[in-house]
């Protein structure tokens, strides 16, 4: 119990004093995860929508693969990315190891299947509803895909959130490719892991509380956005 009360007071003092290190860690966490979500959405939305709409050979296999990849273990993704970007790896010359870019790559690989698979499900449902009308309009498939993504936009917010939640909370991939280097690649989850192993439980807990508050407020914001969209009834 002692730990909890110390942790809370420490967390709030860190926040209210706008501790520079803390701000840096939060900033890096957010920028890495936001970037990863951005790239994953750029790939995952069209990939999911195309898998839902366009009939091509291997479509079912792709759908099953995307579903299966939703459960990718972060450490394994970290290891694979590590192998590719480490000095001896094929992309070693790019000097990406232990950089925020490496972390973004790892997180993108981790959450793109999540975003694509969930998008496929949502777009498929909407497509069932729109199918006859869109075919009656004789639209090219590219426009059908774009129409469906646009009209499902409020449901897709939840997909983005699921991806973001996974990215910001995962530790395995970023610690392997980022290395948890202070002032360079230290994010909230790796910092928590480090402080816990050092035995500084209250600092770890304080960081954990902040992480929870962040996740909660981002979810709340998205929830409000979605609900207001429902009220203005693009239902």
């Amino acid at each position: 119990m002692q730990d909890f009360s110390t942790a809370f007071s420490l967390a709030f003092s860190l926040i209210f004093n706008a501790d520079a290190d803390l701000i840096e860690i939060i900033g890096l966490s957010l920028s890495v995860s936001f970037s990863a979500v951005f790239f994953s959405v750029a790939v995952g939305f069209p990939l999911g929508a195309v898998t839902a709409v366009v009939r091509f050979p291997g479509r079912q296999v792709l759908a099953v693969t995307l579903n299966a990849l939703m459960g990718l273990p972060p450490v394994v993704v970290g290891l694979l990315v590590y192998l590719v970007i480490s000095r001896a790896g094929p992309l070693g010359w790019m000097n990406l190891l232990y950089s925020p870019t490496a972390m973004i790559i790892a997180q993108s690989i981790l959450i793109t299947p999540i975003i694509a698979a969930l998008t496929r499900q949502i777009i498929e449902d909407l497509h069932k509803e729109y199918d006859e009308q869109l075919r009656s309009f004789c639209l090219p498939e590219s426009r059908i895909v774009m129409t469906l993504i646009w009209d499902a936009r409020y449901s897709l917010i939840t997909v983005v959130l699921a991806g973001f939640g996974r990215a910001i909370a995962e530790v395995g991939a970023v610690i392997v490719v980022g290395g948890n280097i202070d002032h360079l690649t230290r994010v909230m989850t790796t910092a928590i892991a480090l402080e816990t192993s050092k035995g500084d439980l209250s600092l770890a807990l304080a960081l954990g509380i902040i992480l929870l508050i962040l996740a909660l407020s981002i979810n709340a914001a998205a929830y409000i956005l979605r609900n207001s969209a429902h009220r203005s009834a693009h239902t």
Partner: protein
Amino acid sequence: MQLLIFCATVRIVQPILDIMIKFKSSMQPLSLLPLVVQNLSYKVNEKLLLDNINATVNSTGVSVVLGANGAGKSLFVRLLHGLLPSEQQTIKWNDQVLDLVIRKRQALVFQKPILLKRSVSANIEFVLSKSILKPRTSDLIQQRDAVLHEAGLFDQRNQPARLLSGGEQQRLALARALATKPEVLLLDEPTASLDAATTFQIETRLELARDKGVKIFLVTHDIAQARRLADDVMFMHGGRLIEHSVSNEFFNHPSSEPAKAYLEGRLLF
């Protein structure tokens, strides 16, 4: 002097323009009629839902496809529009088999309107603009507003389409279909779940379109509606086209037993 040059230019340019206009009008595609349906059948899981339908429709105006539920009416118009695959050569519009070019000259209104999850005006814009990437031109906005005025939905233009009442939704669906300037308009029971006032609005709109030369195929099970609108009636029963005749003849002297029974209000199975 300037006036002289202007006049001279006009005299030279005018004939060229005339020729261009004539050329363009001669490039106008031929009408989609006659529609010839030959030996059209449709099976789902070995169950015959449409059985060897043969028909020729050459008249403009409104062709009503009449019949009870399950007669195959909806299936028939979907096949005419190419929403479902039909065997080659079974459906010909003006001697051409159904392809994308022909389908683009048609529009279909469904029994339950399928509106996009957007505002009323965005639903109209969707069919008016060829691409979502192009900015909206003032021309497009003008066209859109004209369509909305005609449909009596201008005041609701900013509302989400799916929050309109059932009748307004169907009016919007019809306005959107007409905004594509179809030569053939197919309607699948468009007023089946609407009240008399809305049905009247929809029918008035259809009559207007018909008078402008749009060929209409209207699926209905409502005998009174068929009497009001039909120029010719295609009566379907049990997946077969039982009777096809001009409206007067059909209603006054139906030749088949199922049609007689249907018109007398007896229950048909």
